[in-house]
């Protein structure tokens, strides 16, 4: 799915969290969004997910403008905040079955798929536990299982590498992310861990004070210098 951003502008009072951000992301790419604290990384994901009132700008999926009433378009993406939101009284299985139903993926083969994911993320034993009883890492794993099982064309993940998941969970995440990307899915994720960004992405977006500082393939960005050096320069500037 082609994702296009056109002049996204979001202000909180006088502060512009996003300032005329325009970019497009082609299918089958992993895009790391990096920047200093307060650069607008999470806000960018929120804006793409249609969770914000934007002062200016539009988001398009395959040329169609995204708004909350376009359930069909929202069904083609999934957003996972750094602290996932749940109906806490549900169990892991109830949550997964709800997600599958909303994404219309609860047909043939869904049971096997869910079981496979629960095993890969080592949370089979927690399947009947209420979400309120899980730790942060376990919650993120449960939420991630939902996203992967639903199989949308666009994944928006806020700080998945700092979500409290253990090594096994991170490994499983990378595996399924690569599998999905190979099938044409676009993944946008934010991270503060630059070594992760340098090893797990095809493209990099660098935000600075809400503005798009750079966007391009990792190799092209690296020609300007290491990500760490670029961010240090931004912080001094």
């Amino acid at each position, binding site marked *: 799915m082609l994702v296009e951003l056109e002049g996204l502008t979001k202000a909180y009072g006088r502060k512009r969290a996003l300032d005329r951000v325009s970019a497009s992301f082609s299918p089958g790419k992993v895009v790391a969004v990096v920047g200093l604290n307060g650069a607008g990384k999470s806000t960018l994901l929120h804006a793409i997910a249609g969770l914000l009132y934007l002062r200016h700008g539009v988001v398009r999926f395959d040329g169609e403008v995204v708004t909350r009433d376009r359930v069909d378009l*929202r069904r083609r993406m999934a957003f996972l905040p750094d602290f996932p939101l749940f109906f806490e009284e549900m169990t892991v*299985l109830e949550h997964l079955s709800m997600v599958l139903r909303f994404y219309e993926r609860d047909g043939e083969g869904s049971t096997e798929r869910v079981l496979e994911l629960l095993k890969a993320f080592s949370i089979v034993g927690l399947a*009947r536990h209420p979400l309120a009883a899980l730790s942060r890492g376990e919650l993120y794993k449960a939420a991630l299982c939902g996203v992967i099982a639903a199989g949308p064309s666009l994944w928006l993940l806020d700080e998945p590498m700092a979500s409290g998941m253990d090594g096994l969970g991170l490994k499983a995440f990378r595996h399924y992310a690569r599998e999905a990307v190979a099938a044409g899915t676009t993944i946008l994720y934010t991270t503060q861990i630059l070594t992760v960004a340098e090893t797990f992405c095809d493209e990099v977006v660098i935000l600075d004070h809400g503005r798009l500082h750079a966007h391009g393939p990792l190799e092209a960005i690296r020609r300007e210098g290491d990500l760490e050096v670029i961010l240090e320069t931004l912080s001094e500037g």
Partner: protein
Amino acid sequence: MKLYRRDWIRRFLAQRPPLQRRPWPRIPWWTVLRPFLLLLFAVVPQGEVEAMTGLLLWSFCTFYALSVQANHLREGNGLWPFTCLPASDEAVLRYIRWKVVWASRWLPLEAAAFLYAATGGWHSVSHVAMLLAAGGLIWVATLGGVLAVTAWRSPWFGKLATLLCLGLIAIGITALSQTPRRGRLLQAPILTPTAKVIANTTPGGWAVQVVEAGMIRSGEWKRSLPALGLLALLALSVAPLHAKIRREFVFPLIPTEDEEEEEDEEWGELEPAREEEVVEELAAPAQKVPSGWIERFLDARFSEEERWLANRLLFPQANWSRLYRTAVLILLALPLLSRLAALWIEKSGMMVFTGGGGLALFLIVPVLGNVSDVIGRQTPVQGRAILTFGLLPVDLRRVLALDGRVARWRHLLALPWFCWLGAWIGLLQGASWWAGVIPGALVWVTILALLPFFSIFAISGGSRDQKRGWVSLFWILTLMAVAFSGMTVCVMALMEQWWSLCGSVVVWGMSLAFREGYLRWYERNGFDLIG
């Protein structure tokens, strides 16, 4: 090593709350509206309708402000930082108390201004003093109630304090209703019966009535002491209510030892699921079977798809079968208990209430508890759920439509309850039971008409639509004012009750239209769902 440094805590608590240090604090709309309403009371000569509209709006704003404070404590925003600090529970409680005192600092003045308007203005120095004293009394009683709940971890002390505070409130209301100079507001047809109902249904009110009855009848206050003792016992029986308030609003983060044990047991019971169980449940999800016949009847009103959505996304239903069983048992037991009470009152020489009224009132406490449970379950989709809905590809209109249908069915089932309660209140007022049924039905219709409004407030509270600032504020206030005025005119002012019922339908239409407009705004990404 001693972690609790008393002087450090004292210095910390001596600081002003953070809100006061902000250069431009956000002014909530209810704060703007309250002084405006009081000014209206004081300046504009009022008729009954205007007075009642103003009273309703003022009460609404005040209760909303109080609920915001309560929610602030309930969500633990003010408490979480302390869990990471070496502060003792006592210091945390002091912090809470300080916040409550600070938050209610304008209440005495506001109450005095309200009473000024209610009693028709200043008449003499003594009258001013009386108003200020009454305002102070209301403040002390309200504050005392909150502080008592936060001060003692033992529920017994909390209950006694609650009794005292309710008594003070009842004394205040009684004194006001007996004042020779009563403004239009106090003469309004609804306030006097309301004061009577408060005096009749709160433990403090009972205490006042017993003292009054004892002193007037025999002139010997000592004869009232046994009755006071009995009433104190009755008040203590309101334990579940107090425990609920304490658990839900004040101490969610500081559980008592008993609660800690319960919670440990709850989590300890969770067994790891086996693979085959997971497959089984995924293949055939467990259906929630309704427990009683009323629940089964309600369940049958929905399609399989709707039932699936309702079971997962909407709040659980009240146990109607149990509620009605309780009501029937009480009704059956009432004649016998009333007779016993009458005999006891006759022998002890006290005439407090008519016949078995005292015991009937005692019985009504658990009934009121059940009713509050019923009304609580009527709450539409909660605000917190809106953010989760925002993340899922689900049509909020579809969810709200289903929510509305469920709420209407639940509300329909509550109709006999409202009529029954109305009949009771009618009997307590010395009128016929039928005289109470119609107002009970009116209250029912009014709540029904306001349900869409409530759902918007729930969404508005859980999402971030306040970011639109004054535009949304103006819009909401205008619509609220129109709706409430309409409701007041239709429901309260028109003497023909059947016309009032019809008028409520108009309010319902407005309420639905308001919700529709709001949802359109939602769908156009009109406000933030996440910060």
